[in-house]
């Protein structure tokens, strides 16, 4: 392996850790303020996370508020878990013999999770669009949710890579069992 590749992988590992921690903090903060807004102080809906104001939705219908809020938290949590899997891959991968069952499972997991995040984001954003037509004033949720299409594309690409990886495991096993 080239020294530059090793450096790039180390940098990516550190970045993955930072993103994972950031997403955990974001999800935790979102969850906390969401619970506070529901259980103790409805004013909390005015600033759920970094100025996200869902108070109009809260006053429109508390049920929709719970659905959109829970969906957004779920998406954020799923993204954190996705980066946790990425960090785990960096910890487990051995570039001398990279095709292992553990890494294959992690890659498949990332693929399924990315597709799940994409679908969930699509559902939540379409729900928001529908609620907006009902006259609910919505802030820009795109910055919080992220793009559904990107995650679906990512999921599809990773899913294909996971299939190729499975074939790689078979070839590596065959190679190891060639005397």
């Amino acid at each position, binding site marked *: 392996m080239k020294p530059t590749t090793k450096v790039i992988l180390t940098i990516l590992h550190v970045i993955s850790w930072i993103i994972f921690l950031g997403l955990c903090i974001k999800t935790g903060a979102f969850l906390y303020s969401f619970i506070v807004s529901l259980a103790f102080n409805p004013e909390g809906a005015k600033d759920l996370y970094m100025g996200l104001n869902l108070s109009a939705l809260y006053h429109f219908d508390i049920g929709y508020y719970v659905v959109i809020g829970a969906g957004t938290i779920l998406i954020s949590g799923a993204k954190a878990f996705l980066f946790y899997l990425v960090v785990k891959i960096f910890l487990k991968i051995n570039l001398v013999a990279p095709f292992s069952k553990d890494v294959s499972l992690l890659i498949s997991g990332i693929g399924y999770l990315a597709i799940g995040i994409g679908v969930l984001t699509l559902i939540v954003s379409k729900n928001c669009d529908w609620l907006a037509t009902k006259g609910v004033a919505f802030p820009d949720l795109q910055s919080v949710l992220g793009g559904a299409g990107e995650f679906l594309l990512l999921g599809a690409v990773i899913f294909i890579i996971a299939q190729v990886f499975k074939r790689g495991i078979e070839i590596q*096993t*065959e190679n190891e*069992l*060639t*005397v």
Partner: protein
Amino acid sequence: MTMPIIVNLDVMMAKRKMSLNELSEKVNLTLANLSILKTGKAKAIRFSTLDAICKALDCQPGDILEFVEKR
């Protein structure tokens, strides 16, 4: 799935009264790889390996490998 090709390496080794360690040294293969071959776990065998084993055991490939049709 079990292979229809049977490896009779242990039989030939017994006939030549050769231990696994001795064969390993003669054919320049690790004990782990020879063990994989002996126990029938190997998926493939290189011609160079077969050549070395045949030389060491003074036998033909057919003495080591046998085809047994599964029913």
